[in-house]
């Protein structure tokens, strides 16, 4: 076997094989999404299987789905839940994570252990009781009821804790010398030092609120209160619609904003995956 660097033709072959595999995977991963998108812009007169590309591309389906279906209202409801979830998670996860990252107070270990232990309960195994709790509070069929159980997630507290633990010593010492009270230190010195983690919490809680399905399905009954994902289910199930172009337009309308957000803020998405899961 040769130990010298491979001859150029062979290396080029390996590179070509790598790109070929990448393109193949690209078709597998994006193909179904692209197919849905192409369906969503097909004209009303053409058959959905007339060739790969639409012959009369149009945005008409998006207009029609918004007219015949209260999609905008669903988006509005979702944005209310998302705004509440982002705000509460940013504030409460940062506060909790900050306290957990500070040394020298009684009960720190116990609190930490209890919080981590709650990560063991799969949502599905407590959802019936959670529903009963929310019902007891009179919040069934309200957007507050959708938001409240996720108002501050333990995972986000852990992400913030990890971030505060990594704050450089100099910043910490500056805060001590400053002599300000705890809250001022927290907001003026520590929060600006963990902007990256705050962005991660912001994105994950927005994505959670935008994408969640099972909990809103349990809580909401009146279709006026539906979030976007519940609305999509109704759209797909409605026998009156029965036009794949409209369903596709609805699905794309739910996906495209997330994709835009993703391409704009990619590094925070990837960071969230690592920090949320590994460093707890």
């Amino acid at each position, binding site marked *: *076997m040769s*130990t010298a660097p491979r001859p150029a033709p062979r290396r080029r072959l390996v590179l070509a094989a*790598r*790109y070929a595999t990448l393109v193949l*995977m*690209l078709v597998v*991963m994006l193909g*179904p999404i692209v*197919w*849905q998108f192409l369906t969503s812009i097909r004209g009303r007169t053409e058959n959905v299987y007339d060739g790969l590309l639409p012959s009369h591309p149009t945005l008409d389906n998006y207009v029609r789905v918004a007219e015949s279906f209260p999609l905008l209202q669903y988006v509005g409801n979702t944005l209310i839940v998302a705004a509440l979830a982002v705000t509460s998670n940013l*504030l*409460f996860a940062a*506060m*909790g994570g900050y*306290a*957990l990252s*500070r040394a*020298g*107070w*009684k*009960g720190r270990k116990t609190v930490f252990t*209890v919080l981590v232990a*709650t990560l063991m*309960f*799969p949502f*599905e*195994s*407590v*959802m*019936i*009781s*959670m529903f*009963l*709790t929310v019902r007891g509070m009179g919040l069934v069929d309200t957007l507050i009821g959708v938001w409240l159980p996720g*108002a*501050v997630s*333990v995972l986000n507290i852990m992400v913030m804790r990890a971030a505060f633990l990594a704050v450089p010593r100099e910043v910490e010492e500056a805060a001590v010398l400053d002599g300000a009270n705890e809250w001022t230190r*927290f907001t003026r010195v520590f929060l600006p030092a963990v902007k990256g983690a705050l962005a991660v919490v912001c994105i994950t809680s927005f994505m959670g609120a*935008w*994408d969640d*399905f099972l909990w809103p399905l*349990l809580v909401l009954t009146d279709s006026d209160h539906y979030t976007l994902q519940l609305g*999509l*289910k109704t759209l*797909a199930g409605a026998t009156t619609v029965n036009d*794949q172009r409209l*369903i*596709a337009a*609805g699905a794309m309308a*739910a*996906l495209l904003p*997330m*994709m835009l957000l*993703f*391409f704009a803020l*990619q590094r925070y998405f*990837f960071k969230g*995956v690592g920090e949320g*899961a*590994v460093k707890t």
Partner: protein
Amino acid sequence: MTPAPAGPARKAARRATETETGLVHRNWWTPYLFLAPGLVMVALFSLWPFVNTVVLSLTDAQILRGGGFVGLDNYTRAFADPDFWVATGNSVLYLVVVVPCLVLLPLALAVLVQAKIPGIGFFRSAFYTPVIASAVVVGLIWQWVLRSDGLVNTVFQKLRIVSEPVPFLTDSTMLLVSAMIVTVWKGLGYYMVFYLAALGNVSVSLHEAAAIDGAGALRRFFSITIPQVKPMMLLVGTLSAISALRVFTEIYILGGESGGPGGGARTLPFLIRQVGLGFAGETGYASAVSILLFLLTLVFSLLGRRLSKGDES
């Protein structure tokens, strides 16, 4: 007015008192004040529901009335309930098929996109796109691919591979397989990111040394890369096992509210929702099934932990 001490002296004095009291705990309750919202939420929506589920599972409570203590009746009922066994079988089958796929395929994908070659950033982001799509959107996208008049069946019929449409979504077993494909497809990019982080820590010098010793790329992958990413494989295995037991939305969107024909593709979360809610919801019985789901999840997370502990020593 007493003259203020010079700057450095004052700072030193401050520092002394601060180290004595530490950063947070001037009052013992300050940290608890910071943690209060989080702790209240966890108590209300995690600890209490769990305790309540345990208690309810020992009663015959229904959605519209409280129940009396019935001991372990709900559990014996579950073990005699064919629906429970179908759901448990489906959930476990789901796990057994999906976990190996999600441990191995994302690793291969990560190795593929690890190379620093032109355009690789685009491929990484593209492979991650299904992760940011909601389960509902992903379900709708694949429904349109797998339906009897969907893309796959139309192409298959045009090429005369099949004469009748393949019942991807209308046969219970096929529906379960379709949902598994969707879960794997959606999970590939997510776990790829985990593996990219692990691959970044694989020693380059070890690879170079092995290459000089004449080890080919495959050989180096199996005897150098695999042992070093093994802890990550165990983590991915545990996480994907737990999420496989939680599958609900994919089956709900692909197969409809009943969970496939005759409910044959129902998983445990599906069953919990069906028996626990609605006007005749049996919260007691649903709670017992919930506890059994919790125990099943616990078994797999402890198994994962045991395996990774054994790996460290």
